[in-house]
């Protein structure tokens, strides 16, 4: 396998983007990534696009071709493929691009993600997102997607004595980080009281425990390490990329508060990179709900089960702490355009490792990403380094 580097990143502003369309969102992110890599679109050999539900959100399928067309990449008729694993679709696109370059199949590959979620109403969004879990045996029973994570939270709080306030602190910390991220959807600080007073969505989770509904796109460009310096002075090396699966339904899991796919993907990534959690300087984890960030920190091995609430309360996951988590603002404050999130996480780590994360910069040489599909049926982890 060849060594692979990220040589370009591009992001759109995340939020309610009434001003722009599904396809234009992607073109904006893709063009920025090509620009950042200082290359021409003609040099791109292949493209992977992560997208969860173009079919439900904008009634559009055949997204690989649509995006390639509007990005001006059909001129050379390059292969363009949409990949899907619910909220981990972006992570999957990255990993497909990585294996394509590492294997020697192609040299320059673009991995992107896009979701346009606000063109449909709130009820339809909730219904579409329920498709990330088992539609027939969870969704049909009346379990919403936030409801499933709420059941993880109920189990966790009961077993490990996590307090409601500690849960809120995850959101407070991520909003504080998001203030410094120019693309973030909600660039405002919030307090523990704000979280505790926000509307209940699915007990014990409240509105400010939930990632929002977001439009946005992200793209990165990968090439073999040996070619990387042709495009940039600051290539970021992909030290590992791993993926794992688990049961689609939460009720079939061995342990509701442990995402076994996170544990497996994390271990595989550390093994591939010959590293341990202690070597990681910062991590972007999948905080689709506050409880998910706590599970992720533990499942990846940054602390033992049941301790992540305390770690958060002690400020260890904040910028300046022992393991900064979600410097981008996470899904919570940055926003969660489901198909784009996995790529956005990589963009954040690249900015940090290049020293370009103004206002939220961490002293870092090695960063990690963790992207979850559904309630943990797919997990993708990547480790990046300079």
């Amino acid at each position, binding site marked *: 396998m060849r060594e692979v580097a990220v040589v370009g990143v591009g992001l759109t502003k995340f939020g309610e983007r009434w001003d722009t369309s599904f396809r234009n969102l992607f073109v904006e992110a893709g063009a920025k990534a090509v620009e950042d890599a200082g290359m021409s679109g003609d040099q791109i050999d292949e493209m992977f696009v992560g997208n969860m539900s173009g079919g439900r959100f904008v009634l559009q399928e055949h997204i690989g071709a649509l995006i390639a067309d509007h990005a001006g990449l059909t001129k050379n008729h390059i292969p363009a493929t949409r990949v899907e694993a619910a909220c981990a679709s972006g992570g999957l696109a990255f990993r497909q691009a990585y294996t394509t370059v590492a294997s020697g199949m192609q040299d320059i590959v673009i991995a992107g993600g896009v979701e346009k979620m606000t063109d449909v109403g709130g009820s339809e969004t909730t219904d579409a997102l329920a498709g990330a879990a088992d539609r027939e045996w969870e969704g049909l029973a009346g379990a919403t997607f936030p409801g499933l994570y709420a059941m993880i939270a109920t189990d966790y709080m009961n077993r490990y004595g996590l307090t409601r306030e500690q849960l809120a602190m995850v959101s407070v910390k991520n909003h504080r980080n998001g203030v410094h991220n120019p693309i973030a959807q909600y660039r405002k600080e919030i307090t523990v009281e704000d979280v505790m007073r926000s509307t209940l969505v699915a007990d014990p989770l409240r509105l400010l425990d939930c990632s929002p509904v977001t439009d946005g796109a992200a793209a990165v460009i990968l090439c073999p390490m040996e070619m990387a310096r042709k495009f940039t002075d600051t290539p970021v090396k992909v030290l590992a990329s791993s993926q794992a699966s688990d049961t689609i339904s939460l*009720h079939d899991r061995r342990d509701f508060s442990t995402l076994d796919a996170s544990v497996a993907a994390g271990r595989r990534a550390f093994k591939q990179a010959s590293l341990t959690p202690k070597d990681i300087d910062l991590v972007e984890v999948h905080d689709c709900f506050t409880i998910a960030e706590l599970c992720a920190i533990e499942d990846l091995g940054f602390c033992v089960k049941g301790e992540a609430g305390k770690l958060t309360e002690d400020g260890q996951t904040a910028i300046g702490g022992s393991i900064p988590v979600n410097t981008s603002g996470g899904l919570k404050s940055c926003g969660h355009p489901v198909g784009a999130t996995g790529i956005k996480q990589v963009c954040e780590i690249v900015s940090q490792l290049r020293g370009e994360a103004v206002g939220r910069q961490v002293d870092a040489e090695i960063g990690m990403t963790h992207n979850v599909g559904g309630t943990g049926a797919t997990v993708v982890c990547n480790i990046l380094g300079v």
Partner: protein
Amino acid sequence: MSVPRYWRKQQNRYNLKGNYCETCGRYFFPPRVLCPDCRRDGKIVDYEFSGNGTVRTFSIIRTASDDYDLQTPYAIAIIELEEGTCMTAQVICEPDEISIGMPVKRVFRKIFSEGDSGVIVYGTKFVPA
């Protein structure tokens, strides 16, 4: 969802009909055609669950999609059936009545009526035992 999609699983939804693997003794609800542990060595046999179980974890749903909106707030739970398998279902009780470890039993109920057509979908919910 289309009518055939409900109809196909009607017996399972109405009467908690699942199955189990004779080779390893594991029970399945919803039914599986393949035992994930034994795969081709497994022998799958039909089984109707007693419907007695306990609440393992739960939530109260306050924001739902349109089809379920009129029912909010409602309790959703993961229920461990006495045969050892877990399923997701609603528990009919007051929001503050449900707790982890609470014994429940199955009942036949309306799940929701679909969209404008108003087709009623029935299935299994639980009540405190």
